[in-house]
């Protein structure tokens, strides 16, 4: 399962995914055996869904160690106090059941939460890559640091093409194909 390196990359790809599949509902007409008389219509919901998971790592069985090593007289065994505060992780996942496309981003930085949720709101409102304001805003990716090099490549190829209405689907598919490669079709 692929994780995208930066929040910008994740949000961009998610925006493209949401744009690429606006046909959220697919009607399935069920016919009787002869095939000429539709008996019922089912609606298959194939909407991209975004899940944000805030989770703590599973606890390790430290108590077992304590019991297997009998040190009755020494008081040095104080694992509860030595325990580091467990750091939670935040995993964002955009999943499109229709195509099986799954985009993920994982972070443990508390500073990114507000920005990410706000961006998810923009995605929910149907924002495209440009409206997310990721390409131009230099201040936004400052916290991400590591992924800057890649971001330089991504926006120029995606934004100009996405500007035209007719070209919307093309760059969406192209962009995804380039980035995903082996993701969609495992």
């Amino acid at each position, binding site marked *: 399962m692929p994780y995208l390196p930066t929040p910008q990359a994740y949000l961009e790809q998610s925006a493209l995914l949401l744009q690429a599949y606006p046909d959220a509902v697919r009607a399935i007409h069920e016919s009787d055996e002869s095939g000429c008389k539709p008996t019922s219509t089912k609606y298959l919901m194939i*909407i991209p869904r975004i899940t*944000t998971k*805030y989770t703590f790592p599973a606890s390790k069985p430290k108590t077992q160690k304590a019991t297997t090593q009998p040190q009755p007289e020494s008081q040095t065994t104080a694992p509860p106090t030595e325990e580091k505060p467990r750091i*939670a992780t*935040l995993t964002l996942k955009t999943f499109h059941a229709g195509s099986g496309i799954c985009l993920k981003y994982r972070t443990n*930085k*508390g500073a990114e939460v*507000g920005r990410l949720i706000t961006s*998810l709101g923009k995605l929910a409102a149907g924002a495209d890559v440009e409206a997310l304001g990721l390409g131009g805003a230099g201040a936004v990716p400052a916290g991400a*640091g590591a992924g800057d090099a890649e971001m330089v490549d991504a926006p120029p190829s995606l934004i100009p093409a996405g500007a035209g209405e007719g070209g919307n689907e093309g760059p969406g598919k192209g962009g995804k194909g380039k980035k995903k490669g082996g993701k969609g079709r495992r």
Partner: protein
Amino acid sequence: MPAAHAHLNHEEFFTSLTTLLSTTSQKARGSVYLTQKPLIDPQQQDQQIPAILIRATDGNTSAANPKNTIDKKGISKNKNTNKVKLSTVVNPDELEAFYARYAEVCKAGMTGLKKRDRKKKNAKGKAGGKVPKL
């Protein structure tokens, strides 16, 4: 417990979500799942921007654990299944205000994540500067 699928209004949703996040953070275990997806009525496909369905859950299940929940009488027991499941619907015109608040609640509630560390960041910056020299 209220009906499982009743949508809360925003006020109730945020109150419950704050509680859910803070209890999870305090315990430092468990998860909170937040999902969002367009709420589309198959009968009315005309609407341009659909309402958004927001869900929050702690990931527990209310289904019986098949391994240990059936007693001698064959009645399944659900002792430790207090699943938390919240949902609310956001209309398109409320999206901006909702998400502003949503972001605040999440920021305030997800205290288990790493805090911003100025010192560390500076050290990294210096290290990054040294690398090209070498």
